[in-house]
């Protein structure tokens, strides 16, 4: 048995070797076996509404131009000139019909096709020496969208995104499909924290237990009325497909009363009623649960809270979408967006944005205290003592691995997957079990693309298929 087998075995039984939160070797495996394969969120179609609009986003070190072509199609193009490897786009957003490499002047249309190659005939003898026709910036091996959320995978054989999300799509709709128009995304705020990327993903996936402690201050100042310990543990955590999250228990009432309780105006509630399935409505109206934080494996998280944004009793809900983009074993770039239903009234959008700024993101009063903890954990995990410590992540399980409370039956929770009321680390274990599944499986040999050679066109086809 190798050291890795031991680590993964411990993780699978809910005992976490503390060093996995700051370990070069683990990070190398994550880069290759996890981020080399999984679907990774890079942006939303509302960020690039017009032909030529683009944003530049990364999957670890790999920079992709996520662009809408003149044909309206969204593509993710590897941001590396086919000639000498320069970045062909050095801005992070904008609108362009072409990207021209500053080094030797090769230029590409916004669909990736190579259209300008200075001195093609003089230098290469034209097509006979370099086949310009059919050459494109390397597309991401796989790209797919759900509710406008754009994901890429570096694995050409990745399963369809919808299959990958599985039943989590049911919950994703609460955040990203409150009306037929879906969300518009603003931002992201970007900042770097000296914390391992997994900690945030685990926290958002299921850590209701930290809320009353870490976030005491936001209750004390009247920002958010919910997280008091007694109230938080009445909520449930759920896991479905490749994601899971937390909920709050709402006071008794009808669907409409409960949606009003978290601050939605009637005009939005009517749209939700038309948009969501009966089961989606029942989770709120019949069962009394409202989604809060959630994570999709590996590093996409969402949050939905409803703070007070003015000196009144009214609350306003907001939605944030974020990725925990690994920079190294001890550093993560957070990209945090504000999301709001595109059909929401303008006044709602403004106040929801204010609610977001007060709670999450670079200045958010929730987020500030989270990151302080995660930086501290990461720094402590680097040493040799951390290699002797198996952190207990078995909350919600007895020694014989039966659950402390039974899962919610279908007549008390209408959503798919498995849900438990109260504190537990079920979702963190789900997340890390998937992490272990990826880390133990070596990657296939990478297909290579030969630029401009006779074999090039076939090879390109193979990758983009």
């Amino acid at each position, binding site marked *: 048995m190798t050291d890795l087998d031991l680590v993964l075995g411990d993780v699978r039984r809910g005992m976490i070797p503390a060093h996995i939160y700051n370990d070069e070797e683990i990070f190398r495996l994550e880069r290759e076996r996890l981020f080399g394969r999984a679907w990774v969120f890079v942006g939303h179609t509302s960020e690039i509404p017009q032909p030529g609009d683009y944003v530049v986003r990364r999957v670890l070190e790999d920079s992709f131009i996520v662009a809408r072509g003149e044909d309206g199609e969204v593509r993710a193009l590897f941001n590396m000139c086919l000639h000498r490897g320069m970045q062909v786009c050095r801005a992070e957003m*904008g609108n362009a019909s072409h990207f021209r490499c500053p080094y030797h002047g090769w230029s590409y249309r916004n669909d990736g096709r190579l259209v300008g190659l200075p001195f093609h005939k003089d230098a290469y003898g034209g097509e006979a020496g370099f086949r310009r026709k059919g050459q494109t910036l390397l597309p991401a091996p796989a790209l797919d969208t759900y509710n406008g959320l754009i994901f890429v995978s570096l694995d050409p054989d990745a399963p369809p995104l919808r299959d990958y999300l599985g039943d989590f799509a049911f919950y994703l709709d609460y955040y990203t499909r409150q009306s037929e128009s879906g969300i518009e995304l603003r931002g992201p705020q970007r900042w*770097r924290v000296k914390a391992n990327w997994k900690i945030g993903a685990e926290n958002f996936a299921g850590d209701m237990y930290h809320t009353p402690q870490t976030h005491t201050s936001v209750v004390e100042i009247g920002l958010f009325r919910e997280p008091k310990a007694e109230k938080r543990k009445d909520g449930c955590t759920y896991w479905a497909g490749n994601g899971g999250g937390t909920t709050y228990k709402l006071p008794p009432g009808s669907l409409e009363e409960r949606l009003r309780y978290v601050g939605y105006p009637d005009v939005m509630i009517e749209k939700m009623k038309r948009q969501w399935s009966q089961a989606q409505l029942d989770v709120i109206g019949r069962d009394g649960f409202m989604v809060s934080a959630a994570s999709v494996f590996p590093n996409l998280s969402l949050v939905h809270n409803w703070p007070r944004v003015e000196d009144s009793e009214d609350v306003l809900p907001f939605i944030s979408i974020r990725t925990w983009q690994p920079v190294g074993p001890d550093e993560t770039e957070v990209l945090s967006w504000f999301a709001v239903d595109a059909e929401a009234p303008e006044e709602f959008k403004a106040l929801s944005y204010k609610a977001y700024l007060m709670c999450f993101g670079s200045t958010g*009063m929730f987020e500030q205290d989270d990151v*302080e903890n995660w930086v501290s954990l990461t720094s402590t995990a680097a040493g040799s003592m951390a290699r002797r410590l198996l952190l207990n992540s078995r909350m919600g399980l007895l020694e014989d691995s039966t659950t402390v409370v039974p899962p919610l039956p279908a007549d008390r929770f209408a959503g798919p997957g498995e849900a438990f009321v109260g504190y537990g680390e079920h979702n963190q274990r789900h997340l890390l079990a998937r992490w272990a599944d990826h880390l133990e499986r070596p990657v296939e040999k990478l297909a290579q693309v030969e630029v401009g050679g006779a074999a090039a066109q076939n090879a390109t086809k193979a990758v983009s298929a």
Partner: protein
Amino acid sequence: MTAPTNTTGTRAVGSPLGGHASRIQRAGRSLPFSDERHLQAHHWLVEEAYLLDAQRYDEWLDLLADDVHYLMPVRVTTALGAGYDTSPGMAHFDENKYSLSRRVARFRTEHAWTEDPPSRLRHHVTNVRTFATDDPDHLVVDSAVLLYRSRGDVREAAVISAGREDLLRRARGGGWLLARRTIMVDDAVLRTQNLAIFL
């Protein structure tokens, strides 16, 4: 070219929450350094920096007008000629007095973990230029600020560099109040764990 600093006051108007912000703009060239108004504005900024370093935030709040708009856009890297260098519709701070007062109130609780133990802060303020406006009770003041933020013992300190455009309003009973501030941070990706500080 990035937008010249003498237009930053108009950014408040474009921000989603800046509707209430004072629209007063600078008039003319910067005042001589010997001008009494410049001396007062510079003095105000240095006193404010002292309060922010010492985290005496209740006293700092008293320096803010009731209709203050406190804005820190998110900077983005865009091509030369794109015409914008901030993220449309997004900011780090887009605050009024109520939201700032909640931030200050949070630091007063015993549970704002991110500042317990507190950071060691130093706001270095320089490049101060003061401008008259069409209203004798208002001044526009540009400054540069470099914040050094050190936490714990051996963690690398965070450094935040920014330009600021302030609108100062003469207070009844003397002194000046901050009526509008736009903070143009010089990083697109912040290198600090959060903005549990003020600039």
